[in-house]
């Protein structure tokens, strides 16, 4: 009724009629607050993780002999007379296994990403993507079991070595585990290259391989770097598979057939036997802080590298 609209608010009962803060208004505000709380939950948890593992490890860090901690290969936390906490051998174990895993998985993942993203089409492409996704779904404890009971005898037979639980074994397992995530992210990076780039190159008479090599790969190199970094992070933080397939012996490896022990696996194997608040317990949390810090830096770097591609 237009006639009433022209009448001022006083005439229709004051401003309260224009106040539309009914149930729906309050519900809307309440939900806005609720989802905001949900939204910042990820930040809360990241800070929570940092605070809690630091809190438990603090007592150890305060008395930490830094050069010995990083420089000594002797990890003997359970020695009664003179427990030593040197993580050099553990770091060497993690580094060698992760390194071999990357040697195995980087070329294969990038190759698979290029094939799936640039060569394969239609049904073949969808099938391959699904298979890669399935590969990513296999739980790490199953991978560890595979290393222990399938790869172990295989390596002993093929290379004629006494022990099959080694850098080689866990490196291959870890490579297969890291490959799907790297393939998926690398393929996303290839997909992010605009089609107009490809069309322009093709219009100049370039073959498909020339397009990939000269146009697509240079344009997506930051995304591919990020994919590799995230793969490294994945391998670095993997626990159960490394625990089961690496042999779990404290050792600075000199050949791929040596057994090693990783930082993550040390925590998993020893935490159950320590008394809460003991030096050993706190030392394991200190390893956790180290792991947290390194993966944080890796993820941050990967994020910055990807951002770089968007700006540039």
């Amino acid at each position: 009724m237009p006639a009433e609209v022209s009448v001022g608010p006083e005439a229709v009962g004051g401003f309260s009629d224009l106040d539309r803060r009914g149930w729906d208004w309050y519900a809307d505000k309440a939900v806005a607050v609720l989802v905001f709380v949900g939204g910042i939950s990820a930040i809360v948890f990241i800070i929570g993780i940092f605070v809690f593992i630091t809190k438990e490890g603090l007592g150890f860090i305060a008395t930490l002999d830094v050069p010995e901690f990083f420089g000594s290969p002797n990890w003997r936390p359970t020695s009664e007379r003179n427990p030593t906490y040197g993580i050099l051998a553990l770091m060497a174990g993690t580094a060698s296994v992760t390194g071999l895993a990357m040697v195995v998985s980087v070329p294969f993942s990038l190759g698979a990403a290029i094939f799936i993203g640039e060569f394969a089409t239609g049904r073949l492409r969808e099938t391959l993507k699904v298979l890669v996704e399935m590969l990513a779904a296999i739980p790490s404890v199953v991978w560890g079991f595979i290393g222990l009971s399938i790869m172990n005898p295989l390596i002993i037979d093929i290379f004629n070595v006494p022990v099959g639980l080694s850098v080689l074994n866990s490196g291959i397992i870890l490579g297969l585990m890291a490959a799907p995530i790297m393939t998926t992210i690398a393929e996303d990076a290839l997909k992010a290259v605009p089609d107009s780039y490809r069309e322009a190159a093709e219009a100049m008479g370039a073959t498909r391989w020339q397009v990939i090599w000269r146009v697509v790969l240079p344009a997506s190199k930051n995304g591919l770097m990020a994919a590799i970094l995230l793969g490294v992070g994945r391998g670095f933080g993997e626990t159960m598979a490394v625990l089961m397939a690496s042999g779990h012996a404290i050792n600075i490896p000199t050949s791929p057939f040596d057994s090693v022990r990783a930082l993550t696996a040390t925590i998993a194997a020893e935490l159950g036997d320590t008394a809460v608040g003991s030096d050993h317990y706190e030392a394991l949390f200190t390893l956790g802080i180290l792991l947290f810090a390194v993966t944080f830096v890796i993820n941050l770097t990967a994020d910055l590298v990807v951002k770089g591609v968007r700006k540039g």
Partner: protein
Amino acid sequence: MFTQTALDQRNKQVEWLFRALFLMMTILLIVPVVLILSVLIYKGGPTLSWAFLTTIPTDGMTAGGIFPALIGTVWLVAVALIASVPVGVAAAVYLSEYAPDNWLTRVINLAIINLAGVPSIVHALFGLGAFVTFARFGTSILAASLTLAVMTLPVVIVSTRESLQAVPQAFREACWNMGATRWQTIKKIVLPNSISGILTGVILEVSRTAGETAPVMFTGAAFFLPFLPQSVFDQTMAMSLHLFVISTQVPGVPENLPYGVALVLIGMVLIMNALSIGFRVYLRGKKKW
């Protein structure tokens, strides 16, 4: 008119070569998995039976079934879902429907990426410090499930955000123009149109949660318990830890037993995954916009 020069021919050969090379790499990535699955089925298959799934382990876990571990995993996954899905969906709704493009949103996104990248054993340490010790839940299903919930939160957030963003902006604008509030629009338009996508993500989370070992090792999963949990404050066995225990910690386990456990575990995970993927493909075919 277009005669092939020697250069053209060489280019073709190079292209064919690389195509074959990359195809081979892709196949080499997938073949080991097929082989592994075949070995698991070949060696673990004979162990599987109804009795294997429904009886408790006996003789120091060298015989009998996996019933308590199976039920324990169901408990762990269920409680983890109850905790993480509401928070994850709320976070996704915030990021997709409310968040302005500012520093806070960038920090949230960074936190999500980092949460997904934190090693599982660090999540275990966090669960031990925060839920078992600080919140005094003790080693219990509750503590283990909350640890799993924090760990898989990024899966829910990312997949839900994607399916919310797939709802066309015009749907929202049409609803706002009718005078609906933001929440009414989300409730009546955005969520109903993306619910199946959200479900796909939840199924994927189930498959992740079921296979995790390290986060539950010190927070709630027990090596051996011959009975079923009665409440969330009890400890429980879990499939993943059970596989670890009988393949590394218990002497004299017959060879086929761990293969059977591994087969059931991987079967659970892959079926959930296949369900999630199938659901997604079906949805893509059904989508009208």
